């Protein structure tokens, strides 16, 4: 691949996260470079989703430093992360089931809407202009993900694989610089997985979006990610290129178990 990864844009240093007495993450450090696809893998309960939640401000680690775009990050809320260009999808789909695909993706534009509530309600000049602009952006996302045929379908009526794609669409509509994907391929069949892989690679390639993803399918991870970090019981046990990680003893034992 001829793509170039850039500077470190997210640097996590010695992150520890506890819920009462439970240690979810212990002293974890890794970084994410611009334009790369960074995978986080690990067995169930390893702390992968917690890690994503730390990155987009849902959880606040008790210890450690987060440096995003060269600035140390203070305690922040998820919506602040969103305005800074971080978008995400969820392990269990979190869409508005009764709303159409179009409207769901439109909600991804919310942080970029400037007109006030009153202006929107009255459909005044700025609100109208804005909405046309946002709709155009949403249509580009729909075109990109090839979901034109379900544009007006309520999300609840769609099969699982397509709902996942819509969720990715909503994240893309925010035009993020960093995209966090929590198990984007869970529960998909082989063909759906291939489609999703292609979309992730296309997003990364065409928009230069930095992607951090959690995934269980090792084939997928090894194929599409530039670097992989491995967690187990809240600790980092591996970090590096896919091939290095694949041959790492600790990783193999965490995944396959060790013979005693």
């Amino acid at each position: 691949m001829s793509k170039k990864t850039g500077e470190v844009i997210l640097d996590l240093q010695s992150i520890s996260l506890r819920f009462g007495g439970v240690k979810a993450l212990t002293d974890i450090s890794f970084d994410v470079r611009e334009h790369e696809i960074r995978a986080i893998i690990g067995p169930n309960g390893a702390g992968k989703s917690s890690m994503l939640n730390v990155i987009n401000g849902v959880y606040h680690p008790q210890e450690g430093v987060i440096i995003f775009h060269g600035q140390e990050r203070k305690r922040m809320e998820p919506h602040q992360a969103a305005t800074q260009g971080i978008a995400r999808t969820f392990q269990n789909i979190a869409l508005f089931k009764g709303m159409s695909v179009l409207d769901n993706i439109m909600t991804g534009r919310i942080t970029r809407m400037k007109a006030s509530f009153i202006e929107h309600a009255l459909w005044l000049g700025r609100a109208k202009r804005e909405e046309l602009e946002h709709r155009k952006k949403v249509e580009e996302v729909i075109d990109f993900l090839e979901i034109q045929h379900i544009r007006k379908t309520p999300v609840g009526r769609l099969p699982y694989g397509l709902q996942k794609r819509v969720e990715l669409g909503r994240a893309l509509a925010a035009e993020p610089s960093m995209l966090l994907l929590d198990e984007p391929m869970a529960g998909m069949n082989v063909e759906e997985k291939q489609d999703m892989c292609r979309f992730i690679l296309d997003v990364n390639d065409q928009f230069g979006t930095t992607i951090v993803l959690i995934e269980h399918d090792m084939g997928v991870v090894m194929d599409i990610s530039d670097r992989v970090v491995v967690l187990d019981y809240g600790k980092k046990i591996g970090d590096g290129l896919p091939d290095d990680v694949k041959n790492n003893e600790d990783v193999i034992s965490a995944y396959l178990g060790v013979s005693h």
Partner: protein
Amino acid sequence: MSFGTPTGTPEGLQTFPRLLFYHAQVRGNAPAIREKDLGIWQIWTWSGVAERVRALASGLAALGFKRGDNLAIIGDNRPHLYMMMSAAQCLGGVPVPLYQDAVADEMLFVLQDAAVRFAMVENQEQVDKLLDVKDQVPLLEHIVYDDPRGMRHYNQPFLHDIRALMEMGRIHNRNHPDFLDAEVAQGRASDVSVMLYTSGTTGMPKGVCQTHAAFIASAQGGRQIDQLEAAGDILSYLPMAWVGDHLFSFAQALVVGFTINCPESSDTVMTDLREIGPTYYFAPPRVFESLLTSVMIRMEDASAIKRKMFHYFLGVAKRCGSAILDGKPVRSSDRLLYGLGTFLVYGPLRNVLGLSRIRVAYTAGAAIGPELFSFYRSIGINLKQLYGQTETCAYVCLQPDGQVKPSSVGAPAPGVEIKIASNSEVLVKGPMLLKEYYKRPDATAESMNADGYFLTGDAGFIDADGHLNIIDRAKDVGRLANGAMFAPNYIENKLKFFQYIKEAVCFGHERDQVCAFINIDVGAVGNWAERQGIAYSGYTDLASKPQVHALVKSCIDEVNATLANDAMMADSQVHRFLILHKELDPDDDELTRTRKVRRKFVAKKYQVLIDALYSGQSTQFIETEVKFEDGRRGKVSADLRIIDAKTVSAAQQAV
């Protein structure tokens, strides 16, 4: 250049590029092409299209495209692909559309055979296919693509973005302002305008070379019959490589000047159909069938009142709808009810189907069930049939308004002569005939007889109204022992119009009567059996139920009654039949991959059953080996009952 009246195309516009530039002058701001993109219908006007075609043609010329070169066109129905056809024609080149869903290896034959130097493709997918086989197509020099998505890392010098090509063309145009007009002026009506490959069910595909004159004559004839106007819309969604799309979306659009509408993607065709509401529409019978099925399924879920109303008015439509459409006299009470029905049911229904504005709809390509055909006509949609081949620009017969019968394919179109040969084969002659098969003088010679008639390979007859009726492929037609014509497909099609009968194979050549094997449709019959409370375990069990035998017999009796009405076919009534113990299957070589019965193979395999049918036995034991999908083999055996159907003699009919 002088122009005629706006409604008629002036004389002298003998090639498609000249037609295009004519429309750009007389209706420059009218929409020529619409395409739904980013959720919005984008419009290209005639003058806009003309400008782009000019740019594309000049760009092609700058790349070295020459008179007589072939240009492959591969992709869904996209405006730029249609424009590229015109661009090639401007330079005296020949567009060669390929089926876009073919895999690379299937495309290879056509690319080699047509000696393609230039290709216009839709997107990365098609580029990849061409790159796969490029080594084996040494003549292929340039590939132009429409959609730049995913193409960023392709840096081969022979790949061109269509926008870059247009820019190149615009510069070329400025430097040589007279070049393109001179090229267009050189075009002759007798030049080949397009090459369409036959599907190649028998042997290798052949390139059918059609001239500007042939397609323009065909388009003119269609306009004359249906009074097509420039203010019309057609949805262009069928493959560009298919002759029908080339006639409707390219030739007729350029001759008449109506608007073609390109759907957003192949998955959105039904939505786009509703949004555009075309005035002119073409679909193969299976599309009409699935449309109707989807409506019927939704009606099952409607409230009882709506359902009652729906079925009541469908009854009214069945009684008088077709007659009203044909302008025949109808009782005024029926006319009133029909008007009410239009308000309550037919109008909304047409709207849901996207067919509210239809002035003419056509179907062709396969036999359409008379019930299905009449249904659409009865709710006020002017659905008609046509008949033609790739070699005849899909233009031989059309059903004129007011003379539409489900059984016939219509009267010879303007300028077409039809003759029936002694073996019942349909022979045609006219301006729409192919010039030749590309590089195949042998095949060209074989396809014509000494008087210049094209041999269609179809068997048919001309009925009392002068309409052509197609009965079968000529090679399948035989004779009964008494000399009467025996057309197995004709009878089988009639049987298959019943939802309960999935497949039928008729025998009768050199026999004294017709007998049939039947495959029941396990879905439809199973559903019926469930409602009757008949328990069954699978196909073989269901096929052996006496109730099912009675059900199939009633279908065959009905077919016999209609055959008896037909002087030519009265002897072809099905006397005896049996329901096969297994479904005919391509895995067992009984059907082709396109699900056509391999008649000879089936006859040989089940010889013992045929003997039983003709020997008067009432049962016959059979054991057959079958291949399962996972490759295992097994045996199916059964005692098959042989049943006598009710036949109607000509004498009885007279009473």
